[in-house]
């Protein structure tokens, strides 16, 4: 059941209504049941998987805490088991295929590869949450686990299928359910949810068919079309994933639960590193806390380990998205961009003998980041290296200006580029207008409610007109 379906809208209304009707002591078990029902509608065969992983994490966490000093051996075992589950479902076929490709080059025997399994929805997300929980337990950041809270943390339906990736310490304390219903929870949640629905259905989905056409057919593209195609995918994935994240955050807000933000105008980044502090922020935080920081504190930020770890961790970020060389190339490219930025920063710092801010170059770095991020979307979407080269060739070599897509494609893409450029200012303006209207002394409350209701109706109308078929969220496939 995708968030952009009519069934989900009904499910959401009922689930939120019953949540606030239920006695406080029942809300925990109720959320667990509702989350499992939701997950069963996504893939019924794997409904026990997050629960089984939760049970494993619970038992191992107890073992970690049973020692006088937190036991890292148990933590490592738990991490290996969690990664084994993820590897079995997501990477087995890719690794065997890649291994066979190497062994066949040397005329060595190849291994039999069974057909790919169906990927349990959200497995990449809740596996990372399991690993975070185990590390946080070993570091003394979370106390004695409760099986119900831990299960609720892993299967909480708003973020179950595609994040945000949570920390136990930010969600579990909210499972005390002491709050009384307040109208503001519903308003804040609906604001976010409907805005997410608009981002997905009105902004992202209309680009989908053109993007599919450009990336999957083998046709030759002009330079203009190559760049338009890469930009269009960058816009599609942004509005798709930011839309999903807003709907997840909005759903949780309706239950009085706060989830962390996942996006902050990423195409306004001032450097490649800044892009990752704005794009999929909860994944960046996970990678920073559990991979990048431990590696680099060990070497105290020495340049060579730093540069290798930037490329290595970003290549892993790519692999996390999907089992394919296109994803790995995308991640490694982002790592190389960051190395380039760090080298430039170190160069400036050495000349000025003080920490570099590179502020003078910010507009140029912003432009570089925008172009580099756009070019890197090509392998992410093309999957195949051969198609990636063909599109890059059209973007960087040859310089032809022919147009092969329908005129609407260029118009929609340009309008969305304009929207992205103005988005922070528009959002700030909307907030100011919202505050002014809501607190206007001459506007009676029914008028304020009517205005808000009319805006919701416009959003839903856009969704109903453009949502002809339920287009899957891109990140729910990871």
């Amino acid at each position, binding site marked *: 059941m995708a968030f952009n379906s009519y069934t989900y809208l009904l499910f959401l209304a009922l689930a939120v209504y019953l949540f606030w009707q239920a006695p406080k002591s029942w809300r925990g078990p109720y959320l667990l049941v509702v989350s499992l029902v939701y997950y069963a509608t996504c893939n019924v065969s794997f409904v026990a998987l997050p629960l089984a992983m939760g049970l494993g994490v619970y038992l191992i966490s107890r073992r970690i805490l049973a020692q006088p000093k937190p036991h890292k051996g148990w933590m490592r075992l738990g991490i290996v088991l969690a990664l084994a589950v993820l590897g079995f479902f997501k990477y087995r076929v890719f690794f065997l295929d890649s291994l066979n490709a190497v062994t066949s080059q040397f005329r060595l025997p190849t291994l039999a590869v069974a057909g790919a399994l169906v990927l349990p929805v959200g497995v990449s997300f809740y596996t990372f949450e399991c690993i975070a929980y185990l590390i946080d337990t070993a570091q003394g950041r979370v106390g004695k686990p409760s099986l119900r809270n831990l299960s609720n943390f892993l299967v909480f339906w708003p973020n179950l299928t595609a994040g945000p990736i949570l920390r136990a310490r930010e969600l579990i304390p909210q499972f005390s359910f002491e709050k009384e219903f307040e109208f503001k929870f519903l308003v804040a949640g609906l604001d976010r949810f409907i805005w997410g629905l608009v981002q997905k259905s009105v902004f992202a989905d209309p680009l989908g068919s053109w993007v599919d056409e450009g990336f999957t057919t083998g046709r030759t593209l002009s330079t203009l079309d190559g760049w338009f195609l890469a930009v269009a995918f960058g816009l599609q994935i942004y509005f798709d994933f930011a839309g999903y994240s807003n709907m997840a955050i909005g759903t949780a807000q309706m239950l009085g639960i706060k989830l962390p933000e996942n996006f902050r105008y990423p195409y306004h980044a001032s450097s490649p590193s800044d892009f990752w*502090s704005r794009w999929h922020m909860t994944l960046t935080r996970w990678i920073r806390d559990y991979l990048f920081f*431990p590696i*680099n*504190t060990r070497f105290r930020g020495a340049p060579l380990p730093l540069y290798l770890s930037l490329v290595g961790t970003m290549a892993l970020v790519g692999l996390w998205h999907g089992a394919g060389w296109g994803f790995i190339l995308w991640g490694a490219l982002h790592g190389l961009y960051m190395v380039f930025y760090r080298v430039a920063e170190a160069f400036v710092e050495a000349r000025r003998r003080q920490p570099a801010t590179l502020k003078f170059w910010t507009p140029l770095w912003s432009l570089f980041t925008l172009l580099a991020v756009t070019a890197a979307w090509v392998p992410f979407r093309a999957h195949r290296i051969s198609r990636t080269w063909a599109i890059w060739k059209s973007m960087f070599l040859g310089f032809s200006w022919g147009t092969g897509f329908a005129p609407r494609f260029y118009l929609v893409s340009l309008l969305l580029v304009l929207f992205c450029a103005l988005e922070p200012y528009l959002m700030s303006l909307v907030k100011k207008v919202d505050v002014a209207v809501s607190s206007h002394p001459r506007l009676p409350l029914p008028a304020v409610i009517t205005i808000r209701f009319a805006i919701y109706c416009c959003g839903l109308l856009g969704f109903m007109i453009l949502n002809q078929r339920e287009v899957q969220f891109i990140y729910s496939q990871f």
Partner: protein
Amino acid sequence: MSEAERIREAAREVVFKLVGHPVSDDEGLISGGLIDSLAIIRMISELESKLGKPIPTDSLQPDDFDTIEIIVETVKRVTQPAP
């Protein structure tokens, strides 16, 4: 000067150097977007040289250095001898 005060002074100096302007003791460095995780790693090295002792980082995360107040607590906790 107590150990906590010594750490606080060192932290204020290092943070000032990294951020480029004075920062209040409870202002979020990472959460406020003032510095990134790499700057935190640089901060740890500089704190070690100012305090003249190693800061074990095995169980630390960037959030343990988010404000000057938290830095003082973290450094005190990880550098105090085991009972």
